[in-house]
Structures are given as C-alpha cells and as structure tokens.
C-alpha cells in the first residue's frame, strides 16, 4: 500500500516534469513566433521600403548615384537642409531648456495649459502648419507691407523654412526634458540657490550635468525630424531651385522630373542620415541605461 502510494507520487512528479518541459518548449515557441511576427512586420513595413530606396538609387550604377549627389542643386539643397536643421535645433534647445525649467521648477497658474499647448503641434497636420505661416507672414497678412518696407522676406525664403521646421519639431526637446527634470526634483537647485548661486550657475553646475543625456536624446530626435520635414516646409518654400529647396523638396522635384534614380539617390542620403542618427540615439540610450544601472544597482 505504502509502496504503491510512493510510486504514484513518483509517477505524478514525473508527469509534472514532462508537463514542465513541454510548457518550457511551448514558451520558447511563443517567443520565437512573436519575434518572427515582429520582424516580419518591420521587414515588410520598414526595411523593404528602405531596401527599395537603395535598390532604385543604384539602378543606374555608382556613377549615376554619385552624379546625382554631387550635382550643384543637390549640394545646395543639402546645405539649406543643414542650415535649417542646425538653426531650428539650436532655437529649440534654448526653448526646450527654458520651458522645461519653467514647467518643472515652478508652480504657477495655467501650468497645465502651457504644458498641453506645447504638445499641440503634434496634432496639427504639417500642411496646415505651413498655411499658418503663410497667413501670418504672407501677402494677405496685415503685417506683410511692413515686412516689405523692412526688406524682410519670411515666407518663400529661408526664415520661413526655418520657422516651419521649428514648428514641427519644437515639442521634442521639452518632451524629453520634462520627465527627466521632474524625476530630478527641485532640491538640488534649491540647495544651490540658498547657497547664493545665480540662475546661470545653478543651471550649468547643478541641472545640466543631470539632464545632459536627456538633452542629447532630445536634440537627436529633433534633428532627425527637422531633416526630414516635408509637408510644412513644402508650403512655405516656394520651391525656388537652388534657393529654397531643401533635400526632401529636391527629392520631390527630381521625382517629378521622372529622374527616379537621382530622386532615390538623394533619398538614400536622407535614409543614411536617419539611420546614422538612430544609431547615435541608441548609443545615447545605452549610455543612459548604463548610468542608471550604475547608480541603482544594489546587487541581489
């Protein structure tokens, strides 16, 4: 009797062991199934379009590819894109820091409203955003005449392109900084202030070291978006070849010229830059992770 009970137990334990094994293997199956699904989705939706860009860009060989990139209009478009991106990112850094400081270090009435105002551009179609600036600075605007008298061109000139770029990218840095600064709290700044440090000193010596990586992350996102902006810039650009054409607009022009190889060649540069930026982003993220691990790891 006792023996049979023991055996039963062994049997059941054995059975459970088997079950455990099958559940482990089914777990592995699920894991790889999910990875496969995710990879397949990304492959079809993301990688294929990129491969296609590269494929079309090289359809006529390396010489045609290089020719498309070194052609003067392409070079000018590249410079303009670089200019607009750099200026827009610089402006957004100042704004991002100021607004994040305002939103995290102080309490005031209307703070919630301000916070959501900063988020609003996310919800606005870039084309409409471009129209905004046309209405404000264009010929039908009441201030157009004044601008004319001052010989200041905003829309259909570089400033308009910068403004449009700034518009579509301005929430990025604030959005990255606010959570980081919120988590940081105010105590360090308050301590520094009670010790008599001025605003700039506090920012430089206390705040900046803490938010450095968050800021860099925001800058990277902002740069990526600024480089690729098409809709809003297209509305305010005027498409003057060699003057107000950014890289994305140049691609459109080449495409409309039936010059597909060149269009894809220039596009491949943007793809390349985008990937480069994303690699940078990952490096930064990796650094961030390591930093938090170092400060937050207490062993077992």
């Amino acid at each position, binding site marked *: 009797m006792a023996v049979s009970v023991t055996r039963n*137990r062994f049997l*059941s*334990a054995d059975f*459970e*062991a088997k079950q*455990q094994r099958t559940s482990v293997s089914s777990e592995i199956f699920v894991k790889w199934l999910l990875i496969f699904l995710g990879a397949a989705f990304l492959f079809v939706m993301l990688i294929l379009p990129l491969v296609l860009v590269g494929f079309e860009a090289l359809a006529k060989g390396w010489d045609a590819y290089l020719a498309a990139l070194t052609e003067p209009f392409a070079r000018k478009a590249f410079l303009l894109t670089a200019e607009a991106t750099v200026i827009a990112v610089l402006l957004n850094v100042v704004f991002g820091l100021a607004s994040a400081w305002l939103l995290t270090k102080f309490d005031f009435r209307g703070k919630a409203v301000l916070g959501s105002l900063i988020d609003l551009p996310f919800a606005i179609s870039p084309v409409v955003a471009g129209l905004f600036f046309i209405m404000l600075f264009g010929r039908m605007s009441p201030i157009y005449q004044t601008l004319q008298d001052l010989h200041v061109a905003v829309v259909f000139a570089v400033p308009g392109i910068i403004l449009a770029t700034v518009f579509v990218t301005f929430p990025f840095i604030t959005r990255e900084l606010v959570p980081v600064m919120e988590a940081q709290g105010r105590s360090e700044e308050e301590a520094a202030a009670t010790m008599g440090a001025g605003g700039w000193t506090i920012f430089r010596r206390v705040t900046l070291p803490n938010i450095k990586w968050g800021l860099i992350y925001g800058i990277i996102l902002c740069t990526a978006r600024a480089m690729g902006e098409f809709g809003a810039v297209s509305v305010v650009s005027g498409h003057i070849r060699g003057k107000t054409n950014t890289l994305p607009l140049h691609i459109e022009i080449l495409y409309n010229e039936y010059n597909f190889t060149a269009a894809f060649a220039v596009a491949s540069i943007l793809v390349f830059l985008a990937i480069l930026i994303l690699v940078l982003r990952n490096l930064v993220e990796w650094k961030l992770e390591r930093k938090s691990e170092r400060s937050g790891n*207490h*062993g*077992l």
Partner: protein
Amino acid sequence: MAYEVELRNIDKHYGDFKASDHVNFGVNRGRLIGLLGPSGSGKTTILRMIAGLERPDSGDILIDGQRVNNLAPGKRGIGFVFQNYALFRHMTVRENIAFGLKVQKEGKQKIRSRVDELTHLIGLDKFADRYPMQLSVGQRQRVAFARALAPSPRLLLLDEPFAAIDAKVRKELRGWLRETIHKLGITSIFVTHDQDEAVEVADDIIITNKGRVEQTGTPAEIYQLPRTPFVADFIGESVHVPDYTVFKGFEAGEDGAHPGIIRPEFVEIGLNDKEIAMPLAAEHGIVRATYFRGSSVEAHVEVKGQILKAGRSLEKPPLQEGAEVRVLIHRILSFGDGKAETVENKSKRKESVVI
C-alpha cells in the same frame, strides 16, 4: 516525521555569485519560520526557489514529501506575499483576493464567500471595492496576505513582509500576522533582515549567510547558544574582543588568541563597590560616553583598553563621562576554533545571572 517543506543540498549560482551553497533544512507542519540574514545572504533566493520562481542548480525541494523541482509555481500549493506586495493595481481589493480562485475556476458562490471571509479576516470589509492605490501601506500588506491565502495554500511564503511599513504600524502588524498565522495553522516562512522581527514573530529561525544556513533553532536557542561567530555577531548587540583572557575571571591556561563577544547584557556597571553584586570579580573602567536609550542608558566604558557596552537602569544614579566605575563581566561568548561557547566568569562562583 515528514517535513512540510524540505530542502536537500540546494545549490544555486548567479554567474560567479553563489546564492545557495548546500542548503539543507526542513520545516515542520504548522510552524512559523523566520529566514533571517543580512542582505545578499541568499534568503530571498531560498524563498523564491521554494515558490518555484527560481530553479536550483542542484538539490531537491520537497513539499509534503513530494519533489517539486519541476512543478510550476502555481501547482505547488503555495501562497506568496511579495516585499512590495505586487498587488494588481487595476483590480479592487475584492478582485485581487478573488484572482487565485477565479484562475482555479471555482464557483461564483464559493469565491464570493471566501473573499468575504478573507476581507473580514484582514479587517477590510469596508474597503473591498477600493483599488490598492487608495489604501495605506499597511492595508495593502494585508490585502497581499489575503490574496495569498485565498486559494487555501498549504504553505505561505512572505518576503520581507514589513520592510515597507513605518515603525509604529509595523509593530501592530507583526503581532497581527503572528496571531493570524497561528490561528489558521498554516506553515509559513518569512524572510527578514531584521533580527528583532525574526525573534518577535517566528517560532523557529533559520539564519543564512553567504548562501549557507548558519544555524536553525528557536529564537531563544539562537540567542543563547549561537553556534558560529557570525550568528553570535548577527544576533543581539555585540562587542568583539580579540582576547578575552585579559579580563578578570576569564584567565586561561593555554596561550594563543581567545577572541570573544561581549553583549551589553553580560556587563554590569557600578558607580562604586556598593552598587555591584560582586565587587571582587569586577574590573575598573572609565566611562567614555553615555547614550539615552529611552528605557535605559547605554554606557561605553573603557576596560583594559577595550570599549565595552553596557545597559544601565534609569533608576540608578547617572554616570558622568570620565568617571571611574566598577565593571562586572558576567559572561563571554568565546570562539575557540570556529565553535562558539559561553564562558562564565569564574570569579563569580555559583552566582546565578539575571538578564
């Protein structure tokens, strides 16, 4: 007799780190066990291996005599209370408690009555429809407790159950938990790094260090007869002396080092010979510092170049820093060669000691 839970030769590594090193112990049915050790001593790992959340590298885990190494956590008949309680935030108290029962596809009626019973047990009948975030930390702990108990496990595991609770509530909860567990008669193991907690709550204590079990026993056994220097050091308040034979009444024939531990309650201080029971056995000492401890004063006195700690009743005249006093060492815990034993003051003869 069969243990309710038994661990045999358990080894567990995380990379180079040895979390469990030949762990062996058994727990009898209905006992409340405190698994005590410093952080990193492997106590939580043991608990998680019993629960099935970790797998040992080798060795057997038996519950009710059955090897469960390959059994999924949910099939081991275990209740687990996590350190942070791990309540389901989006479920009410009622839903949290009912979760385990629903998983086992119990009847609606049965779930209802069991949940009512448990909310009543933890005294949260009125809060049954609240969400965890709307409860105090102490209340959350009780919900976690009730959730673990709901499916009527044969073994309850608690990981640092009081760590997140502030001092005052903690005291209340300790008493409540001990009482409730005894009332239910469920075998329980809780992990703690707080010796007071272990001593106060547990029926038996298992002390772990560096992945090994150092000693098991009742709180009194462990307190009075620590078997290793680590246990002696870890339990109670201890002052190490490199060689106790220098003190009066502890002289020894052989040469060599005689390291030992002197606890505050082993030491008595008198302002003069009259205040002390056996002036002849006492040493001279100088008060170096005094600390008010609420119900007593802790004095640090220097004796033969060693600082010893001793408690002193508030009823007695206060000690001045720098004052010369009489110091009687009743007892010393000695560690000859890795083994601990109690050495009584030979000068005292047959005096009995009151702690």
